[in-house]
C-alpha cells in the first residue's frame, strides 16, 4: 500500500526548548519512587518484626492440603439441619437487607454534606467527615451493646447494630463517589438556573446512583456473609451456626455452610450486576 511516513525530530533541539519535559528525574518520579520504596520498606520491616519464616512458610504450604481433606465432602449431616441452616440464612438475609437499607438512606444525606463539591464550607464537611470517622471507629460490639440496652436482645437490635456499623462506611464511600463525579452535567444544570437541590438531583444523582447502588449491594452481601454482629445480639442467623461449627471443629458442616453462603453471595452479585448495568447501560467490551 502506501509508503509509511517516518517521523523524526532532533532530540537535542527539542530538549533545549523544553528542558522540563526531558528531565529524567522529575519531582513526580522521585515522589513515586520514594512512596514505593517506603511501602516496600515497611513491608520488609513487617516481615522481620512479625517473624515471617520462609522455610516454615514453604513447609506450611504443603500442610495446607492435608487440612482441606477435613472439609470434604461438605455435609450438613441430615436434612433437618440443612433446613435449619436454610432458615437461618433467610433470617440473616432479611436482617442484613433491613440493616443495610437503614444505614444507606441517612448516609446518602450525610454523604452529600461531606462532599467538598456539594458543600464548599470547610467546617461542615470537615465535621461531617469526622462524625463519620467516629461512627466507624466505634466497634461493632459496642454498637450491639448500646442497642441491646435500648431494644433488648433480638433481631431488631441486630438490624440497628448492622445499620450503625455500616452507616459510617457508607457516608464516607458515598461522599467520595460524589466528589469524583464529572462536573460538566452539574454545570449544565446550574446554567439552566437549577438550585443546589436540582443540581444534585439531575447533575450528580444520575452519575453517583450506580456507584451507590453497587456499594449498598456489596455491603448487603458482606453483612449476609459475616453476620457475627447479628449473632452477638441474639438474633441467630447463619453466622451463629458458622461460628458454632468452627468452634466445635465440624469442618464438613463449615464447608457446607460456606457453600450455602457462597450461593447466596453469587445470587446477590448477579442481582447487583443486573441492577448496575440497567443504570449505567451496557457497553461493548475491549476485544
Amino acid at each position, binding site marked *: 500500500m502506501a509508503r509509511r511516513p517516518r517521523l523524526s525530530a532532533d532530540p537535542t533541539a527539542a530538549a533545549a526548548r523544553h528542558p522540563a519535559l526531558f528531565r529524567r528525574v522529575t519531582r513526580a518520579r522521585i515522589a513515586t519512587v520514594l512512596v514505593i520504596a517506603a511501602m516496600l520498606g515497611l513491608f520488609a520491616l513487617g516481615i522481620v518484626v*512479625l517473624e515471617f519464616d520462609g522455610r*516454615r512458610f514453604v513447609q506450611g504450604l504443603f500442610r495446607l492440603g492435608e487440612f482441606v481433606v477435613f472439609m470434604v465432602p461438605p455435609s450438613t449431616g441430615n436434612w433437618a439441619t440443612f433446613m435449619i441452616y436454610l432458615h437461618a440464612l433467610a433470617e440473616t438475609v432479611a436482617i442484613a437487607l433491613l440493616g443495610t437499607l437503614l444505614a444507606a438512606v441517612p448516609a446518602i444525606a450525610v454523604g452529600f454534606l461531606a462532599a467538598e463539591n456539594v458543600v464548599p464550607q470547610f467546617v461542615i464537611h470537615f465535621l461531617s467527615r469526622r462524625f463519620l470517622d467516629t461512627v466507624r471507629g466505634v*466497634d461493632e460490639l459496642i454498637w450491639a451493646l448500646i442497642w441491646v*440496652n435500648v431494644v433488648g436482645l433480638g433481631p431488631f437490635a441486630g*438490624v440497628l447494630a448492622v445499620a450503625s456499623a455500616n452507616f459510617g462506611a457508607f457516608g464516607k464511600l458515598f461522599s467520595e463517589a460524589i466528589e469524583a463525579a464529572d462536573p460538566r452535567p452539574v454545570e449544565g444544570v446550574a446554567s439552566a438556573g437549577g438550585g443546589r437541590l436540582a443540581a444534585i438531583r439531575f447533575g450528580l444523582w444520575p452519575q453517583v446512583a450506580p456507584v451507590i447502588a453497587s456499594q449498598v449491594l456489596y455491603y448487603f452481601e458482606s453483612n449476609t456473609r459475616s453476620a457475627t454482629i447479628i449473632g452477638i445480639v441474639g438474633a441467630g442467623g447463619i453466622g451463629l451456626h458458622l461460628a458454632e461449627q468452627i468452634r466445635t471443629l465440624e469442618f464438613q458442616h463449615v464447608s457446607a455452610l460456606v457453600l450455602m453462603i457462597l450461593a447466596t453471595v453469587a445470587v446477590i*452479585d448477579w442481582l447487583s450486576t443486573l441492577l448496575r448495568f440497567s443504570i449505567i447501560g451496557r457497553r461493548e467490551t475491549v476485544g
Partner: protein
Amino acid sequence: MAPSITRLSDTQLDAMMRAYDGAIAAKRRQTILGFAILAVAVAIAAQVGEVDLGKFGANLHRFGDYVGRLAHLDSGAIVLSDVGEWFWGLRRWLWLLGETLLIAYMGTLMGALGGFMLCFFAARNLMGSAVVRFATKRFLEVCRTVPEMVFALIFVIAFGLGPVPGVLALAVHSTGALGKLFCEVVENIDMRPVDGVKANGGSWVEVVRFAALPQVLSNFASYALLRFEVNVRGAAVMGFVGAGGIGQDLIEAIRKFYYSDVSALLVLIVGTVMVIDLATERLRHALLGLERA
C-alpha cells in the same frame, strides 16, 4: 409558553408524546416493579427482624446509658477529670496499636495487590471472555466468603501461631473484598479514553495502564485505605491466631466491663481512623487533581 419556541399543534404532538411516553413507560414500569419488590422485601424483613418502633421510641433514652458508663472511671469520676488514670495503659496500647497497624498494613497491601491484579479480569467492559470473568468473580467470592476464622485456622495449622497466619487470612479476605469493589469501579469508567488507546493499537495491558488506570486510581486508593481501616479494627482474627493487637484489648475490656479502658481505646482507634481518613482525602485529591494547574 416559551415565546422563542414554535409550539406544535396538539395533533402533531400527540404522536410524539405517545412515542415518548411509550418508551419511558417501559422503563418506569421496571422501576416501579423494582421498588414494589423492594417494599415487599422490606416488609417481610421487618416482620422477620421483629422491628418494633414503639419499643424503640419508648426506650431510646437508654441509648446514652452505656455511653454514659463509658465516660466514667472506676472511681465514678468523669474520665476527663483524670486523664492520666484514664489512659493508664497508653504505652502498652500505643505499642499494640503500632503492631496492629503493621499487621493490617501487610495484610491490606497483599490483598490490595491481589485485588488489583484480578479486578481487570472480572470487569465486564474490559474483559471480553465470559469464562475468565466468571472464573475470576467466583474466585473472588470464595476469598471473601470463607470466613477469616476458617482461613486463620487453616493457616495456623500450616504455619504455626503468630502474626503470619493472621496476615495471610487478612490478605486473602482483602483480596476478595477489594477485587470486587475495584472491579465495579473499573466497570464505571468513561469508555472514550479506552477507545482512544485502542485506536492507537494499544494491547489489552496498555489499555488498562493508560486508559483505565488513570481514571480508577483515586477510587482504588480510597477503597484500599478503607480496607486498611477495617483491618486495623478487625480484632477477631488477630485474637484467634494469638497475635493480640489493639482490637483484642478492646474486646477484652468490653467483655470485662472496664468502661474507662473501653473509652480510652476507642479514643485511640477513632483517632487512628481519622488520621487514615485524612490521609485518604489528601491522597485522593492528589490523584484526582494530579497537577491540575
